[in-house]
């Protein structure tokens, strides 16, 4: 459905744009129908830039992003299929308007001919899909709703457009533990219905809970990608291992974790090559191929 092929993004930085910064470097992966792909990386790894490029909010410097075989062209037709939800639910809504105005805007822009009764039915259905009670949320101001409710309203808004791909960029990182899981479960339900979800996060446990496939980014490059089970149980790249060993877990103190052998990783931009480590499991680890450090 969504395919990225050697996508690169170079920003001009510094005074007069004199120097360049490669935020995303030759990234290739795809999101299929009915599949959650989690894109995991630390701050500055380029994960949000990738999300913005997929949504057409930032132009691509190199490589191609295609949706159903056609290059991404921002516009009404594309946004009927692909929508995004972002991190901060409190700044997404206009505080002086009732929260359901986001739905009215969708109706004006995309469905001006739909009769009132029909629209109400659609709206109710979309809200129920994200497990919100229409009576409880409609007609409220954003400050009267919780962060979890606001995020689910935004997902419902996307669903009204019959989208096929949702880009969810850190949508749970501002939520409390007790409401976070409700939003994740909504995403899991949507996946069952055939929606593709690109779940961008820095939290490995959330990515593991939800995703079929995982893409680990470092400095804009893919270091490891594959089925979530394979990446989490048999991580091959030292960077993935180091990330996994640093995740705080219940019942497993850090002291008990096996130390990760030191590796300086290959120098940034030195290889960019991925080696096959198993079915659909690709690793940029030098040990699986020609190691620039050891050779």
């Amino acid at each position: 459905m969504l395919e990225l092929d050697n996508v690169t993004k170079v920003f001009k930085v510094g005074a007069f744009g004199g120097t360049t910064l490669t935020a995303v470097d030759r990234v290739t992966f795809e999101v299929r129908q009915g599949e959650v792909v989690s894109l995991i990386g630390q701050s500055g790894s380029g994960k949000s830039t990738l999300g913005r490029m997929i949504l057409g909010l930032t132009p691509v410097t190199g490589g191609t992003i295609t949706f159903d075989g056609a290059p991404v062209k921002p516009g009404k037709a594309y946004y009927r299929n692909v929508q995004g939800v972002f991190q901060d639910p409190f700044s997404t809504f206009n505080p002086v308007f009732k929260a359901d105005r986001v739905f009215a805007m969708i109706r004006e822009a995309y469905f001006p001919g739909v009769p009132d009764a029909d629209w109400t039915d659609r709206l109710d259905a979309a809200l129920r899909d994200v497990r919100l009670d229409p009576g409880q949320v409609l007609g409220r101001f954003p400050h009267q709703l919780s962060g979890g409710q606001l995020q689910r309203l935004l997902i419902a808004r996307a669903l009204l457009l019959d989208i096929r791909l949702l880009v969810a960029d850190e949508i749970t990182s501002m939520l409390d533990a007790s409401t976070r899981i409700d939003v994740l479960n909504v995403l899991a339900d949507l996946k069952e219905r055939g929606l593709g979800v690109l779940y961008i996060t820095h939290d490995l446990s959330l990515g593991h809970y939800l995703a079929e496939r995982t893409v680990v980014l470092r400095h804009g490059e893919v270091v490891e990608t594959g089925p979530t089970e394979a990446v989490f149980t048999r991580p091959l790249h030292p960077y993935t291992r180091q990330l996994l060993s640093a995740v705080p877990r219940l019942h497993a103190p850090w002291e008990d974790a096996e130390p990760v052998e030191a590796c300086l990783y290959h120098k940034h931009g030195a290889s960019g090559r991925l080696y096959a480590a198993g079915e659909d499991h690709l690793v940029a680890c030098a040990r699986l191929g020609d190691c620039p450090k050891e050779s």
Partner: protein
Amino acid sequence: MSLRVSDLRVHYTTLKGDVRALDGVSFEVGDGEILGVAGESGCGKTTLGKSLIRLDGRMRHIGGEVELDGEKLPIGDDRRMNPFRFHKVSLVPQYSMSAMNPTRKIGKMVGELLRSRGVALDQAKLEGRLELVGLSREVLRRYPIELSGGMKQRMVMVISTLLDPSLLIADEITSALDVSTQKAVATALAGFRDGGVVKSMVFITHDISLTYQIADTIMVMYAGKLAEKAPAKTIVESPRHPYTKLLIDSLPEVGVRHTERRLTGIPGGPPSLLDPLAGCRFRDRCPLAFDRCVQEPPAREVEPGHVVACWKADA
């Protein structure tokens, strides 16, 4: 006993009335103990941390006492509290990323800070502390902007403990950091206790799995009150308060997939602290609630070191 807090009440004054952010909390922290304080947004954990060092303009000390190393802290009196700050109690704030003066090189700034407290800079001690948190002495010649987030966080930790306080309060110091940096910072913090730099520590975070990694004891707060307090292992393995149980059950961990075990959140939201529910404040979200919950459950010790504020703690 290093820190003893009894029935502490701190309210915020607002136009609508008093917000009872901290409403009768009692606990103790022993020598060499790290107490982790966990809870959701608005449970009063940050208010607790701030109360122990400085009340801001909107906060009022309503009642209760704080005793540190046998000495009563005048927390309601900003001026009398001054001699205690940084000498006895110190804080690593939530905003560490922007806590340092951007126009000074770090070494110069540290010197100025110490002079403002009337203390001369002990270069050897400073370098020892930098080593303890894994920073090179080079950082003293740099500006804060030249440091990464984790380095800034560790630098602020070094600065806040230079006067050897007895109690260190760390408020959400890792929430803006990546997992591997988070681990380095949290480990360095525990190193302060192990190295005897500080006697005891209050580690505030919303992340129970992180608290579990470094705290000896965990205190779970809900709506301005203590819900449960026990050794870290007990809180995670056999919690007694329904809120703690639900909170821990809602945590996705590496190893849990939604297809195998579907986690659930806690329905509803925390009560408004302007006019909170009488009795147990968790009762309208609690699956075990019964008639008696309209009376406030006292925090009682169900076994040594395990305090629970719930009528059904024994069930």
